[in-house]
């Protein structure tokens, strides 16, 4: 007998994160397959209004408390734990994001449910729920079975379509009124990204550079191509960490999520942390010397070559 499913809603600064809809989408499907209810829970001062957008769920719990805008893993896992005890949830879905980091393991430690990380797929086979996780930076996939057929699942962003989780319905909302324990980890303030630089989320064309660009000098080549195509240059984490481009140009988990018409990726291997930020782009063109680079499983068109062989002649041709 499978218990109901709970989804921890994620939102940042009043905006519902994509991952929430991804989880609602897959959660809805699983709930229908298993014939169990789908619940979700929202923390934060606008909990109730956010809850009203989550029509895919059968019931939404809202805990209106500004302290929980950025949920402390300790406090959040305690609330979730008591909810699991009350409602006997078998599956709890949590976003595999920076915002939610730590909640899953803590909840697993406090409850009896195991935790599964990097989950890319969940499906029901012969009445049993199965999971697929990616490991080693996306180089390996593992099918996983769980003792007791339930668990706390961290969903890798970008694994499921978010559209499936969107619904115009107004879900029933239950306000939770639980006195909050005091958290030792105190949120002080947001630090906004530095303004003044190009906003890569608003570009139609992005030329993205990764490790394969070799050194900072070569970024000029990408800049030239981007200028000709009327766009801007962005990058994956290694390039940002080297200080070759500002933080505002980072695409991926800690950086921006972008959806340009054209995403032209140069020497980006395509680690999952990067692809989650660009996989929904209109046309993805990727150049990489490694035919096995994971970027080719996200790109629409791939070129297995040295970018230095391709880009200069292409740029020349585009100029004329």
């Amino acid at each position, binding site marked *: 007998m499978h218990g109901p499913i709970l989804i921890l809603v994620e939102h940042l600064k009043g905006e519902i994160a994509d991952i929430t809809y991804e989880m609602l989408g897959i959660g809805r499907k699983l709930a229908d397959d298993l014939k169990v209810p789908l619940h979700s829970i929202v923390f934060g001062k606008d909990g109730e209004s956010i809850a009203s957008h989550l029509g895919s769920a059968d019931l939404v719990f809202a805990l209106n408390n500004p302290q929980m805008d950025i949920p402390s*893993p*300790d406090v959040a896992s305690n609330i979730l734990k008591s909810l699991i005890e009350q409602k006997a949830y078998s599956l709890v879905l949590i976003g595999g994001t*920076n915002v939610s*980091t*730590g*909640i*899953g*393991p*803590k909840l*697993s*430690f406090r409850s009896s449910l*195991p*935790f*599964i990380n*990097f989950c890319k797929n969940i499906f029901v086979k012969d009445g049993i729920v199965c999971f697929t996780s*990616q*490991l*080693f930076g996306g*180089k*390996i*996939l*593992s*099918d*996983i*079975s*769980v003792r007791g057929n339930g*668990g706390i699942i961290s969903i890798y962003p970008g694994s499921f379509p978010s559209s499936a989780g969107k619904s115009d319905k107004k879900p029933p909302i239950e306000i939770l009124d639980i006195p909050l324990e005091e*958290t*030792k*980890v*105190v949120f*002080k*303030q947001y*630090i*906004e*990204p530095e303004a003044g630089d190009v906003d890569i*989320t608003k570009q*139609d064309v992005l030329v993205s550079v990764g490790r394969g660009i070799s050194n900072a000098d070569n970024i000029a080549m990408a800049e030239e191509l981007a200028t000709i*195509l*009327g766009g801007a240059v962005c990058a994956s984490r290694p390039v940002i*960490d080297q200080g070759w481009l500002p933080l505002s140009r*980072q695409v991926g988990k*800690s*950086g*921006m*999520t972008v959806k340009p*018409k*054209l995403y032209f990726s140069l020497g980006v291997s395509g680690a999952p942390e990067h692809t989650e930020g660009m996989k929904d782009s209109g046309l*993805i063109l990727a150049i990489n010397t490694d035919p096995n680079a*994971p970027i*080719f*499983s996200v*790109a629409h068109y*791939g*070129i297995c070559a040295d970018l230095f*062989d*391709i880009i200069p002649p*292409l740029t020349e*041709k*585009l100029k004329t």
Partner: protein
Amino acid sequence: MDIVVFLKMVPDVIEELSIADTGKSLDTQFLRMKLNDPDDYSLEEALILKEKYGGTVTVVAMEASEVDEVLYTALAKGADRIVKIPGDWTNIQAPGIAKLLASYFSSTNHQLGTDTLVLLGSQAIDDLEGEVAPYLSEILGTPYIGVITGISLDAEKKKVNVIKEFAGGLRGEFELPLPAVIGIQAAEKPPRYVPVAKVRSIMKTAKIDIVDIIPPDIAPAISIEKMFIPEVGGKAKMLEGPPEQISSQVIELLKEIGIIRR
């Protein structure tokens, strides 16, 4: 400040990974281990903190191939003490690692004090059962926060101020009291370089402290049924030919989606 850094070795993904005959684990024959990237940053952050506020840096790692070199390198970079927990830890997962590391504090005279800061990489590429840091904080009963890119100590040296990354370049500032367990995403600057000769001379003179800890008895909660290499290149249509020809094909595509006219 008493800074403890836990380092973990993970498979090097530069090398081709292959699956063992059982289909359930990696083939260890060709596996090469390297230090988990965020762990390298957590060591760097620890050294930066030591330089800023004084104190000691203790580096603890579980036995793994090539871990000795990593430990000696940490010492050469400026750590004060290096500790290895011997054993075969191939199949241990995050909850077990957390127990093991917690036992380090209970089974040695290195006690968790009011000035202890425990740093770990925020995440590892093989953290299938979740990150070690939150588990460890559960066992130690300390506050925890992850995905941190900067730490500073307050004037009374009782609290730390940390910067956490969210998404889209947005970051947040938090404060938490010591002792604490923190998951590091990146340090304020890239890990420092330490010349090979320095590491080598330290290898000759320094000793790794061996701390024996009885393996925790944790039954695995999840099991891997099948491991496989994802089909890559499955999606992309590959453009081939000499650069000239590829250029023309690219330009055609750009025309199709209206990025360039004509």
